[in-house]
């Protein structure tokens, strides 16, 4: 009879378990949200110098302070570059969750930049899977540096303008790994150097590898189709860095051969060479504020 008793207990356990599972199983059918956009492909709107597919969310403002110091190979007299600092200040705002605008001011060439960025396609998981995210980026920059030569004094307003068009295409392959390819077209109404062309094609490659929940290593490379015959002093831009997310702030620390922090400068006018040690230490600090009315007390 002992065995029978055990059998009964077991059966009760099995059937009650069975019923509960059914109820939860039935609930899955009620779930309307079976397709989810993939979030946080990158921690920030920049991989290092270049933009990432991420946008600032609706009614949020990202205040960015970016620094690049002088070249590491400038010797102890310049404290290995730390004596010189180049800055970009940026105010970047989310109009909707997918559309953002930004304005920035760079020390380099005393340039103002204005940009818009729109998240066209979002990578998703679940029932309807989209493998990639695509963000479109457009920017206009104007140099306001006072003329240093007679030649420059005659430069018209129009000839101080540069335009950038990018398609940012990224995929979050796993929790840890995200990669991005960035076809770019730069158009300078008047290039900085005489032998340079107005239009410049470039392809950027970037990625991040998360080391922990809050720390990732990033790398970025922009190949630029400079005219080989023109003998321009320009190199491709390459950068390596670390992102540290402290909740509210993202610190990005990096090494790059580019001094400029806007596309026109780092894609088109990078004169530093990694081979010669023309490397700049730099950092970006990003702080996001929410202007959502409901979140007044829930400020990060």
């Amino acid at each position: 009879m002992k065995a029978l008793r055990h059998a009964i207990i077991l059966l009760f356990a099995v059937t009650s378990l069975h019923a509960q599972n059914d109820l939860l199983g039935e609930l899955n059918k009620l779930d309307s949200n079976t397709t989810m956009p993939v979030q946080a492909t990158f921690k920030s709107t920049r991989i290092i110098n270049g933009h990432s597919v991420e946008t600032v969310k609706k009614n949020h403002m990202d205040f960015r302070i970016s620094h690049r110091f002088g070249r590491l190979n400038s010797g102890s007299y310049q404290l290995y570059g730390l004596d010189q600092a180049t800055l970009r200040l940026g105010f970047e705002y989310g109009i909707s969750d997918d559309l953002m605008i930004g304005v920035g001011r760079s020390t380099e060439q005393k340039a103002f930049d204005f940009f818009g960025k729109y998240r066209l396609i979002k990578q998703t998981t679940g029932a309807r899977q989209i493998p990639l995210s695509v963000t479109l980026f457009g920017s206009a920059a104007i140099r306001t540096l006072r003329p240093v030569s007679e030649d420059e004094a005659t430069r018209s307003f129009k000839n101080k303008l540069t335009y950038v068009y990018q398609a940012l295409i990224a995929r979050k392959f796993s929790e840890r790994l995200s990669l991005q390819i960035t076809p770019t077209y730069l158009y300078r109404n008047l290039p900085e150097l005489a032998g340079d062309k107005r239009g410049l094609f470039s392809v950027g490659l970037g990625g991040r590898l998360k080391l922990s929940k809050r720390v990732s290593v990033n790398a970025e490379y922009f190949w630029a189709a400079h005219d080989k015959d023109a003998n321009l002093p320009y190199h491709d831009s390459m950068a390596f860095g670390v992102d540290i997310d402290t909740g509210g702030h993202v610190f990005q620390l990096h090494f790059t051969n580019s001094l400029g922090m806007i596309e026109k400068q780092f894609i088109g006018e990078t004169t530093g060479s990694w081979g010669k040690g023309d490397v700049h230490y730099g950092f970006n600090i990003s702080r996001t504020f929410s202007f959502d009315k409901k979140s007044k007390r829930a400020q990060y």
Partner: protein
Amino acid sequence: MRHHIVLSVILLITLAGVSGTVFAQGGMFATAGGNTRFSSETPMENIYAENKKTQVLLNTGTAEIAIRMNMRDFVFPNKLMQEHFNENYIESDKYSTATFSGKLDQRIDFTKDGTYDASATGSFTVHGVSKNRTIKGKLKVEGGKMVISSDFEVTLVDHKIDVPQIVFVKIAQSIKVKVEYILSPYKK
């Protein structure tokens, strides 16, 4: 021994039949738009989030209740917090849902309008960690609808949710949860 096996099989069939009928006969009430809110309150700052897509199923025949919600459906006023909630704390890619599966502890006459103090005991799963819990609340029967409401707390360490020291944001060790589910008759 053979006798026992035969008996067991008969019992199994009978029980399966009985539980099947109960399951089918009991009125099923459900919602896919239940409201689950939580708040983390510290002297430094308060954080709120709301999930308006909680799924609930109540079987009045067996008094069983199941609750399920996608962690990604929690909406924060601050989107950065929302991202951190999903990425760093709750790890919603790995642990996409929170669930409760259990049974009401009281016998309630679901056919009679009124408000009843009730509690449910069962398995509560958040962040992949299940705890056996009894959660108190109120159940209101009104014009063929069931309204379930409850206030309870979830302790972060119970569910292995880490809050590291370097984080500038202050997060309470115990999160207050408030739920309100309005269930209507459910047809499969």
